[in-house]
């Protein structure tokens, strides 16, 4: 057996590949459902689908879940395009969230039209600054950013834990490690009255379009792609590789930080240690499933939101743990990697 690199990737295949990967992973997980709960596979998947999309409430929950995933997915996709491996979106998300409660719970008070952009800007900046250190270490000393960004997640999470036991602890919180709620002027508007879905979804969609535009149509995006595809040639052609890397890191960290602002100001209202069930890490999967395409990120974030929300609903109805969602997402990522490999290479049997 031999592998040959394909000269051109057929467009149809690069669209079909994620779909195929998802179908195959659902088939594999079907075996798991059978072995685990002895439930009819069809029933289980139907319950998932209903739980995620079966009612207005279910749809709004799924979209609310997709919102941070789009943002962390964009954070990963944009950085990965420049071969900057930001594994720290989880920490950057919490950085954005912390800044939101520091500024948004009464320390400053402004009318809503000023308050909201201020918190968004501050949260994004916090995420960006958090990634600036690893980016600087990478371009100046060649320190592997996979390690530094990953470790940054744990530092941030422990820091949040410390703050919630200390200065950020809500005096009215009955002793729970949670922050005070953000002011009404800081809270993002809901899209549908009585549901949790908030304006962050529109922001995320707009940013996806913006990131696509920057990638494809601006000189900055041009430099980012050049640096990602061949940093040596980019440097030879006079592209300031180090500066581009730092800029990419700022944008990526900022997007992840915004996800944190949205989760606090749009969804939960306050900061707790379980604000994010791994949105930062899931963003990596979202980006890979989308093959780093910003608009594809929206689709794959929706898919993952459906799986997670659906699996929650299913586990309430039958005796299958909602951990199944993690297994489905993980296997679909594995199959996606195989599929991407297969659309880039041709297998020859001899």
């Amino acid at each position, binding site marked *: 057996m031999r592998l040959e690199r394909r000269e051109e990737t057929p467009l149809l295949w690069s669209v079909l590949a994620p779909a195929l990967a998802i179908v195959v992973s659902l088939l594999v997980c079907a075996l798991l459902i059978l072995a685990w709960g002895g439930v009819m596979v069809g029933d289980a998947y139907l319950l998932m689908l209903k739980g995620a999309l079966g009612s207005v409430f279910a749809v709004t929950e799924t979209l609310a879940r997709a919102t941070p995933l789009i943002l962390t997915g964009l954070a990963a996709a944009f950085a990965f395009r420049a071969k900057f491996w930001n594994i720290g979106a989880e920490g950057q998300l919490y950085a954005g969230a912390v800044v939101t409660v520091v500024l948004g719970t009464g320390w400053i008070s402004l009318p809503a039209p000023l308050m909201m952009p201020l918190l968004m800007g501050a949260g994004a900046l916090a995420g960006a600054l958090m990634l600036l250190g690893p980016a600087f270490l990478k371009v100046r000393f060649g320190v592997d950013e996979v390690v530094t960004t990953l470790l940054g997640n744990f530092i941030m999470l422990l820091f949040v834990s410390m703050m919630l036991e200390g200065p950020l602890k809500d005096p009215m919180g009955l002793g729970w490690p949670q922050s005070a709620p953000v002011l009404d002027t800081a809270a993002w508007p809901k899209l549908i009255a009585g549901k949790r879905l908030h304006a962050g979804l529109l922001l995320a969609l707009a940013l996806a379009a913006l990131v696509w535009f920057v990638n494809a149509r601006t*000189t900055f995006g*041009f430099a980012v792609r050049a640096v990602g*595809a061949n940093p040596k*040639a980019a440097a030879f052609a*006079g592209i300031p590789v180090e500066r581009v890397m730092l800029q990419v890191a700022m944008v990526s960290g900022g997007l992840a930080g915004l996800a944190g602002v949205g989760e606090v100001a749009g969804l939960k209202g306050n900061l707790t240690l379980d604000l994010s069930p791994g949105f930062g890490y899931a963003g990596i999967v979202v980006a890979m499933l989308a093959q780093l395409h910003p608009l594809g990120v929206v689709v794959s974030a929706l898919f993952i939101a459906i799986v997670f929300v659906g699996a929650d609903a299913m586990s309430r109805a039958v005796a299958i743990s909602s951990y199944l969602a993690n297994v489905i997402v993980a296997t679909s990522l594995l199959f996606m990697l195989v599929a991407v490999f297969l659309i880039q290479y041709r297998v020859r049997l001899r």
Partner: protein
Amino acid sequence: MSPTAAPEPEVVLRLRGITKRFGALTANDDINLELRRGEIVALLGENGAGKTTLMNIIFGHYQADAGAVEVFGERLPPGHPAAAIAAGVGMVHQHFTLADNLSVLENVVVGTEPSWRPWQARKAARRKLTELAGRLGLEADPDAPIGELSVGQRQRVEILKALYRDARILILDEPTAVLTPQETEALFATLRHLTERGLSALFISHKMSEVLAVSDRVVVLRDGRVMASRETATTDRGELAELMVGRPLREPKRQPRAPGEPVLELTEVSLEGAAGRLLLDGVSLEVLAGEILGIAGVSGNGQTELAGLVAGTLRASAGRLKLFGQPVTVEGPEAMIERQVARIPEDRLAEGVIGDMTVWENAILERYRSRKFSHHGLLRRRAAWSDAARIIESFDVRCPSAQARIRLLSGGNIQKLILGRVFALDPRLILANQPTRGLDVGAVAYVQERLLAAREEGAAVILISEDLDELMALSDRVAVFYRGRLSAAMPREEVTIRKLGLMMAGHDPGELGDAA
């Protein structure tokens, strides 16, 4: 092995109707070839003519779609390198397959030693190697580490390695690519010496002068087919070139021209590498408008560093650099592009282009931020497309479209695109680092003509090349690198290939006296 062994058949290697296809491409098309005992046959052809494919089939790396390889009258089982070795075929690769940290002896015996009591075999191996080397006149100290040997010596070890495995047919793939002229001469002497003792050699090359110098017979390949087989004594350069390329070849013509003002001046420039080693050691040079300054040298003696300095990717640790009479203070590739320095990098794929980006994106790579292609941070794609179309048109870049990824293009076409890109800067200084390496003959001629035309128009050109014929044909003056030191530039008329070769090996041209 020895000439007194049992009589061998007259034809030692015979190819019958070898055909090999890769997809739509026919790399070898019904190739027939005979190699007789004691003969050196040269296989001559451009890049992509099918030489390497054919060699890989003989050696068993590829399986032919049709045809057979016969060694000493026996048909080789296809696809088994071990069978080829056992039958007496030895291969000397263009890129050496030696381990630097092992000794000559260890490199020669590796893979042939028994795993049981290897040290006993080692003694016998040493005897065999010394005997072999003495008998064939291939001197080599069995205990010298490979890393300390010169390139020519390493190649001798490669040959010894093949002969140690009882090879009676040697296949040499572009063996002179890394040698100085003197080392090349020595290699040819070795080959003649070996063939007088009954060995046979298949010598693969695209350099006509070498083929004419060493072979008994020349087989010319073009587009995967054997175009002709000629006795070397009855043919000449012109005929071979025409057979190889398919049309008569124009030799580049350099018109006399009075040089102008100095464009680039280096004064006592040094560059310190790791561990304080001087990669450039007090280099001074001056390039004038309207001249081509040729830089010769065995690779790794400072050419890469000089190129890096002029390209803006390296910084001198001492000395002064002046461009158009102005000291260069702001460094970096960007500054050089702004000063209209055209830079043709040594390694097209690693530094010249971004393989996964399109032809048009690569065409504007150095200028994407200029006003022509950017407007408030937005890429002016239409302007870029039409600029790329102009380069494709006027530099004859053959590509499916400007939207194709550039890695799909051949080396020659990538080089033409790079030429188009740097000439768009309207350059007054051109740094051409190995601009024709690995290109086919047609593309070589094209690149050389463009460089000469730029010189005509008054550009200063630094031409770094390992192809001495090219340096002699194009340069107005030639300087030679040896261990980081650059000789004074000599007028072309005072230079011979022999003199360059001696200087590349570190001899002082003053010592040569009348011999030069």
